[in-house]
């Protein structure tokens, strides 16, 4: 459906809503994979995959201390523009969610 041209790894990493929210969460402080999985109501395996994509894009670094793997932002920072596009993306997604909920809620109302 779409022709893919060279995609920036960071941009590809933030194409996913969960990963954008993980970045937002880590922006407020470091967290372990288990904490992230719990916060996002996901399996440990699912969260590990997301963190791996963010790590490959160098947006997140992880460190294993004992049996626990800690995640933090960096070393690469999103530039303002990429951050804005990510935020826009999350906003548009949220608006479409609301539109959909609104359409469901008003189903059967006078047109």
């Amino acid at each position, binding site marked *: *459906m*779409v*022709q*893919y*041209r*060279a*995609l*920036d790894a960071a*941009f*590809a990493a933030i*194409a*996913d*809503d969960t990963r954008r929210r993980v970045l937002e969460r880590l922006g407020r402080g470091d967290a372990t994979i288990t904490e992230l999985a719990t916060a996002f109501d996901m399996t440990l395996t699912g969260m590990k995959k997301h963190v791996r994509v963010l790590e490959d894009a160098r947006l997140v670094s992880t460190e294993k201390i004992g049996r626990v793997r800690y995640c933090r932002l960096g070393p690469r920072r999103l530039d*303002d*523009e990429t951050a*804005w*596009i990510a935020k*826009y*993306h999350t*906003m*548009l*997604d*949220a*608006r*479409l*969610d*609301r*539109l*959909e*909920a*609104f*359409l*469901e809620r*008003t*189903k059967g109302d006078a*047109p």
Partner: protein
Amino acid sequence: MTTSAAQQPGKATVTLSGDREIRIERIVNAPRDRVWKALTDPTLIAQWWGRGNTLDIEKHEPVRGGHWRYVEHAHGETHGFEGRFAEVVPQEKIVCTFEWDGMPGHVALQTLTLEDLGDGRTRISTVSLFHTGTDRDGMVSSGMEGGMNESYAALDRVLASMS
């Protein structure tokens, strides 16, 4: 690269093409005329666009060249969004620019199209194209100056013909 979900209500398909274009598609359980109304009637827009926040619709002129400006109020902060409509085809298509007060000069061109699926459902497709600083730098270095000079030359001719 791409994330996608089955085409069911509530599931968006998100794809990226190029590094500055985002497409989001989803199918809603509502006929196209209801979706169109929710997108264009200000009293209805106010009920969903703000994502649960209070929304002031300061301007909404859904015709080519018309302006829109919505202000969201959340947690004691206000967030203004605005743009101009580039194309409006009733029941089918809305093309407009989108800017957030917090990032002036970063403009996205949004194209939203509605497809009547014939079974009471509608496919909403959005394509957002970001005009980046890099794009603008590129324009300047690749001939926009030439275009400007041509415009000035034309202006000179007009002024000359008036004197």
